[in-house]
């Protein structure tokens, strides 16, 4: 939706390089999430944030770190990219109105 923007939309990077993905929201939502989506695994939670500078790990957090210095921005960093991190990454916010998520359009990351 228009309220969440992910950048870049596509990225190819080399093994061992650091990579940062950005999620920007305009709805002032408190909770933000990073998921990866892979065939056969569905959506898996990497990290989430419950406020500025407040973050926690999800089920597949190894090799990833996050930061949230402003309500509107949630960054996902791959410290040293590996081929197993080739995936589609989605950012989401928790919509207080119906308790569901709003998702961004995703970032397709390829690690070669």
């Amino acid at each position, binding site marked *: 939706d228009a309220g969440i923007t992910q950048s870049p939309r596509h990225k190819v990077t080399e093994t061992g390089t650091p990579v940062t993905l950005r999620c920007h929201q305009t709805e002032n939502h408190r909770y933000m999430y990073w998921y990866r989506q892979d065939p056969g695994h569905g959506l898996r*939670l990497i990290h989430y944030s419950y406020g500025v500078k407040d973050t926690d790990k999800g089920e597949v957090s190894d090799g990833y770190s996050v930061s949230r210095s402003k309500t509107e921005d949630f960054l996902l960093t791959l410290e040293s990219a590996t081929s197993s991190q080739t995936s589609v990454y989605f950012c*989401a916010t*928790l919509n207080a109105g119906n*308790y569901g998520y709003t*998702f961004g359009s995703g970032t397709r990351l390829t690690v070669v």
Partner: protein
Amino acid sequence: EDQVTQSPEALRLQEGESSSLNCSYTVSGLRGLFWYRQDPGKGPEFLFTLYSAGEEKEKERLKATLTKKESFLHITAPKPEDSATYLCAVQANAGNMLTFGGGTRLMVKP
């Protein structure tokens, strides 16, 4: 631990052939059950929220129902444009995140 299982993994229908998708769940106190539609190359889009057993929601050719153990997404007289992956998710009373099922990929042929 909250769990969500969707079946079938894939479903092929002819245009106009009605069917149902299943979402079985276990959760420690259900706050809400959600259905999303995901088109290739895009993020999931919200369809419905169901809160309690017996509740039903409708939107065009889709109707979602909820029991204490599962939810169904009924598709009546589907069209090719209904082809997509449909995701089910649950949110527990004590949590602020959703647990997703693996999705059902629906293909409707003209």
